[in-house]
């Protein structure tokens, strides 16, 4: 599998989300050899999990599809899924990198016929949907998965289920004895585009996430709104599957807060407004309240804020919600805080609450790796004095897709410069 030949003229891109894909493509289309590694079994990262983008309300898969097509016809890019950087050493112009491949237990003979999944009985939590539903342990991560190839979960490799999958496959695609493997690369520059994780909402204990089922996060909401999500696109209360009649969006949940994330993640205001439009589209009677500190809709994104404000069913309330409690009998949520505009104590009951949690960067966490500058929050700083490894996208600052793509394009150029210098 890993018969990849590289030289110090090649570029390694770590992370196959929108930023990594972009960096890889931009460099490859300028004529450079690129290796792209992604830890998930598919490319696309966080945007693959989004239902729509703000402000156009268009599907992210549309752009991913174009990018995958660019990738398909470009022999300069080699990509590996279920791949992580195990080791990295060297300096600008000459890095030695060890890539670790986790076993997929499915080889490239897979035709995606789906028979293994039909045969498999065991189910696992669907991480693509943040565990809100289950999938078979022999699965396609999602229907737009690229590469389109099944995955066998390690939990069934040694079970009857695993055997059944293997037996039913007509193409010899399932290899239950597949083992972890590694391969080495020599590259001239590295683009670190490992993306972000949602802030752990459990840590904001006064909001009861994890305790009250009807408190969910913005990333979960995105899956819930997706037609291929756990509820087939219906906005339903997790506790009882009831259609929502009123819903609260709590902005800056853990953000701009020195006890949690002191910075602003830049996208949550617009994401919540976008999600409010999902709710309105599906449940026209649902009342929506957005609790905010400041609404941050930069540049022409202001237009989207203007448009959402015109919706009578969506109200913006300036308040930092102090506490959520649950009515055990109904599962309803009581939100308490101060309405900073009126100065009144605020007590409002909702069917469901969505926490607009922020972005936490996936920093370079590899023992022995060359030092890469980062700020106190873990965001990579592209220090010209330490050239060679460049952050791209949300590892540098929390930001939206367009800015991440622009940033990833610039990082591709920095990587090319590292090679040009040698």
């Amino acid at each position, binding site marked *: 599998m890993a018969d990849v030949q590289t030289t110090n003229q090649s570029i390694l891109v770590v992370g196959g989300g929108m930023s990594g894909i972009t960096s890889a493509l931009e460099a490859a289309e300028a004529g450079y050899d690129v290796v792209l590694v992604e830890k998930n079994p598919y490319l696309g990262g966080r945007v693959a999990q989004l239902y729509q983008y703000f402000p156009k309300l268009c599907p*992210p898969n549309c752009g991913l599809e174009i990018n995958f097509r660019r990738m398909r016809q470009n022999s300069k890019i080699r990509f590996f899924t279920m791949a992580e950087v195990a080791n990295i050493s060297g300096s600008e112009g000459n890095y030695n990198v060890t890539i670790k491949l986790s076993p997929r237990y499915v080889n490239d003979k897979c035709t995606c016929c789906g028979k293994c999944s039909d045969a498999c009985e065991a189910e696992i939590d669907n991480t693509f949907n943040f565990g809100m539903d289950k999938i078979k342990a022999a699965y396609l991560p999602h229907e737009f998965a690229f590469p389109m190839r099944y995955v066998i979960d390690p939990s069934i490799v040694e079970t009857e289920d695993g055997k059944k999958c293997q037996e039913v496959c007509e193409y010899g695609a399932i290899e239950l004895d597949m083992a972890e493997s590694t391969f080495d690369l020599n590259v001239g520059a590295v683009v670190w585009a490992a993306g972000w994780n949602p802030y752990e909402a459990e840590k904001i204990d006064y909001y009861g996430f994890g305790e009250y089922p009807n408190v969910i996060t913005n990333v979960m909401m995105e899956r819930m709104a997706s037609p291929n999500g756990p509820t087939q696109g219906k906005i339903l209360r997790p506790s009882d599957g009831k259609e929502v009649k009123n819903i609260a969006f709590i902005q800056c949940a853990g953000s701009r807060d020195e006890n949690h994330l002191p910075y602003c993640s830049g996208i949550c205001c617009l994401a919540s407004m976008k999600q409010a439009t999902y709710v309105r589209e599906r449940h026209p009677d649902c009342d929506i309240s957005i609790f905010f500190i400041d609404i941050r809709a930069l540049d022409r994104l202001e237009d989207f804020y203007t448009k959402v404000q015109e919706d009578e069913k969506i109200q913006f309330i300036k308040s930092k919600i102090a506490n959520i409690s649950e009515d055990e009998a109904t599962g309803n949520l009581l939100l308490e805080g101060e309405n900073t505009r009126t100065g009144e104590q605020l007590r409002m009951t909702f069917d469901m609450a969505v926490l607009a949690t922020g972005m936490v960067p996936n920093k370079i966490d590899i023992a022995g790796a060359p030092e890469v500058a980062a700020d106190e929050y873990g965001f990579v700083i592209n220090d010209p004095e330490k050239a060679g490894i460049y952050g791209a996208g949300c590892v540098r600052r929390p930001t939206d897709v367009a800015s991440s793509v622009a940033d990833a394009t610039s990082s591709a150029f920095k990587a090319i410069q590292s090679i040009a210098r040698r």
Partner: protein
Amino acid sequence: MDKKTAVYICTGCGIGDALNVEQLLEEGTEEFTIDVSKDHPCLCGVEGVEVIKKDIADEGINTVIIGACSYRVNYDVFNFGPDVIVERVNLREQVAWVMPPEDENTQELAEDNLRMGCSKAKDTQLPEPFKAEEEYSKDVLVVGGGIAGMTAALETAKAGYKAILVEKEDKLGGFLGKMKQSVTMPYKELADTGAAEMIAAVEAEEKIKVYTSSTVEKISGGPGIFSVDIKNNGNAVNERAGAVVQATGWVPYDANKLDHLGYGKFKDVITNVEMEEMAAAGKITRPSDGSPVKNVLFIQCAGSRDPEHLPYCSSVCCLVSMKQATYVKEQDPEAVNYVLYKDVRTVGQAEDFYRKAQQDGNIFIRGAATEVGEAGGKLFVEADDELLGENVKIEDLDLVVLAVGMVPASKPAVTPRIKAPADAENADEEGMIEVLPDSGFFANSALNLAYRQGPELPTLKYGFPDSHFICFPYETRRTGIYSAGCVKRPMETAKALDDAAGAAMKAVQCSELTAVGKAVHPRSGDMTYPEFNMNRCTQCKRCTEECPFGAINEDEKANPLPNPTRCRRCGVCMGACPERIISFKNYSVGMIGNMIKSVNVPEEDEEKPRVICLICENDALPALDMAGIKRMKWSPYVRFVQMRCLGSMNLVWIADSLSRGIDGILLMGCRHGDDYQCHFVKGSELANTRLSKVSETLDRLALESERVKFVEVGITDYEKIPKIIDDFMETIEEVGPNPYKGW
């Protein structure tokens, strides 16, 4: 090339169970010259591919037709190098997985699909990449010498390429050069602007040729072969470039329009730009009398986020006012700053600077100014304090700073007017009409492109020549010309640095791709290009008007003058041409026409309608694939024909189809309108417009208008596809069979 063609049918993934493969190979290929035809139980497996490779080696096969899965999978497996034509015929996602097995209709569908594939393969030629006669340049022309322009030039040079930097002022630096200090990553303290160092670096860089006091008089040619006329201190200079970065920056919003905030009325009401210049010059004082300032009030969103002025947010003004408040405090620690704001917008790590500004004792008031006035030689501001819920009056102010927003340099002060087309509704008495922002005739002079579609980059509604695509922020309506920095979108310095480097990346990439005859995004790598058979051109101008990228110029006799290096290969020109004279090596009016003609049309008494669906390959076709993967069901009577973009749809296909008995035409394309998703900007919209002319054809044939339908299909609309098809089939059933069957 002399074709030797082979057909391979895969019988795996249920295809063999659903179809009579022997019959398929016979019926589907009988009208074509096929040298080898085979089936294989797993064509994508090592043995299957080996069979094909062996035939290529031993039999000299150079055209391979693969009847198997969608072209979206196994693309790498079925790639036999640049000298072998590969045509994929979908028998899996569109046939075996969605149609009843061993069924006559399923079989006929597969046979038609194979016929269309054979027909297409027959007409396909290997691409011969375009090579311009002129020598290619890979130099980057950068217009604008501010932070974004200088960065684009420096980054280009660092990558080993040359840059030509043109700045209209007599020195480099732009607004960066006028600033006292900046607030940028990591947003803890004020920092030196770095302007002097950056200017010195640009001037010292031998790969950068700098022209100050200069303007671009004319840019002709196209990517790789741009010819640039520069007026340098009155002298004419010519340079050649491969690509262009437009970084012409911004101007502050005209504060004279903000007299309600006291500007122009009171000398001590100034803009943030004037404040910056004063601070950079030395000391912040009261303009009225030069006395020191003690109390300063900043009015945020002065004219911004205001439908009467600038409806958008300029995104930097919050930070700028906090920076200037810091200047005031540095000058006099006892001074008091008030910031009157709507929302404080310090995103990302910039929140740290807001926190610092609060800790420094600056007073932030959420509300809007209701009055700015003067009393006793000092200014006062009345405001609705949203948090106190009452009107407050802040008095004894020495200075009021209006945080005005950014207007892109491209935005004209007065919208230009042009002669309205005959059918325009809102033309004035003289028959003139306002130019729309997305026209090349809208923006202020910067590039002076010698393009038929106008001298400047088309812009978005507020005059920013930015991309409309979220996934592709460097998408541009003029190939090889990329905007960067604040002309594109209001942005702070940290972002401008990245944006400019990204634009330079795209510029260099465009030059590299162009030099080998390849297209740039979104059909990057495509080596075909449109060829014009000029003998039959009727000078109707449709191609030159409709090309979404301004690729085609015109001579004085209205003959089209194609510029292939500007072309994005969408095929809109081919769709527009009534004479069918525009063709690609692997995509032409004749080719698609022949594919459609290869579809068998059963006699009326067989009661098997036939519908042709022209489907956009960018979004609708993947959605159809997805519907197949999900094993949804739809009518077996529809034949799907893949389009590069629905804009390449030529009406002749519809006329020809209907006149030979096809019962209906369904068009599936991307969303158009304000939030368009068409990857070629206008393609889907143009297809829809063209359809309005279909009624002539239908009338001529005395056919019902319901027989032709356009539907917007997004990539995630796969759940809707079966219903779209079924509804259309129902309509076709209602209008009855096409009477031209069997003619």
